[in-house]
């Protein structure tokens, strides 16, 4: 396993995820972008565990996965609410913080 490659992969994946969050107005795709960023961090964590020979890295990934799952659940709940009130899941009309 070569660390340099892992770093490049992780960076690119995280960038793609961030692009997904910033460039798309569909809330679903934005959430998927967040998941991509989390995945990138997970990959890096596992690689770090290999580098140091620690098992704890994998456990940490485990916990991150758990939190990601809970977060997706709550996020989708919010999305359902948003659709219920606005009949759209685009972030275009959400301007109540304006001014």
């Amino acid at each position: 396993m070569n660390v340099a490659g892992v770093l490049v992969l992780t960076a690119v994946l995280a960038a793609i995820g961030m692009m997904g969050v910033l460039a798309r107005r569909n809330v679903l795709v934005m959430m998927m972008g967040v998941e991509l960023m989390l995945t990138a961090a997970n990959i890096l964590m596992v690689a770090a565990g290999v580098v140091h020979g620690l098992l704890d890295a994998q456990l940490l990934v485990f916990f991150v996965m758990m939190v990601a799952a809970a977060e997706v659940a709550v996020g989708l709940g919010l999305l359902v609410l948003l659709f219920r009130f606005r009949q759209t899941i685009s972030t275009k009309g959400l301007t109540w913080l304006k001014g």
Partner: protein
Amino acid sequence: MKDLLFLAFTFFITASAMAVVVARNPIYSVLNMVVCFLGVGGLYLIWGAPFLAIVHLIVYAGAIMVLFLFVILMMNLNEVAPSPWSKWAPWASIGTGGLTTLGVAWASHGWPTHYAVSVASTKALGLRLFQAYAGPFELSAILFLAAVIGVVTMTRSSEKERS
């Protein structure tokens, strides 16, 4: 051998991730996401974390993406929003995948150290989890409880609708 596999998986992960972002149809995004997670699972396997690979697939691809699909299908969100760049979408994703693979290959070239990979047994993982990380484990239960209660409270219908 492992390096070649690593490059292949890199290609898959990156290309499908790009496809997730640029796809117009949300269903396409979800399916591409599943492919991405498959790649990630494979990556974990070659790095000696089999348990983690399976759990990753089950949780992410099996639960989370299914949740996404449920939401899309239940609320009919799969209208395709046309975009002038849509026809370049496949090429964008393949191109990104290719470039990243090349980049990874080029980066790995001069790096001196190659680390040895030892496969982590599930037993060892379990022991470690329930001995050293028992506390966080219990706390995560509370986290899920909070998430469940929160979501249910948020999305239940109001008094008027129920009566």
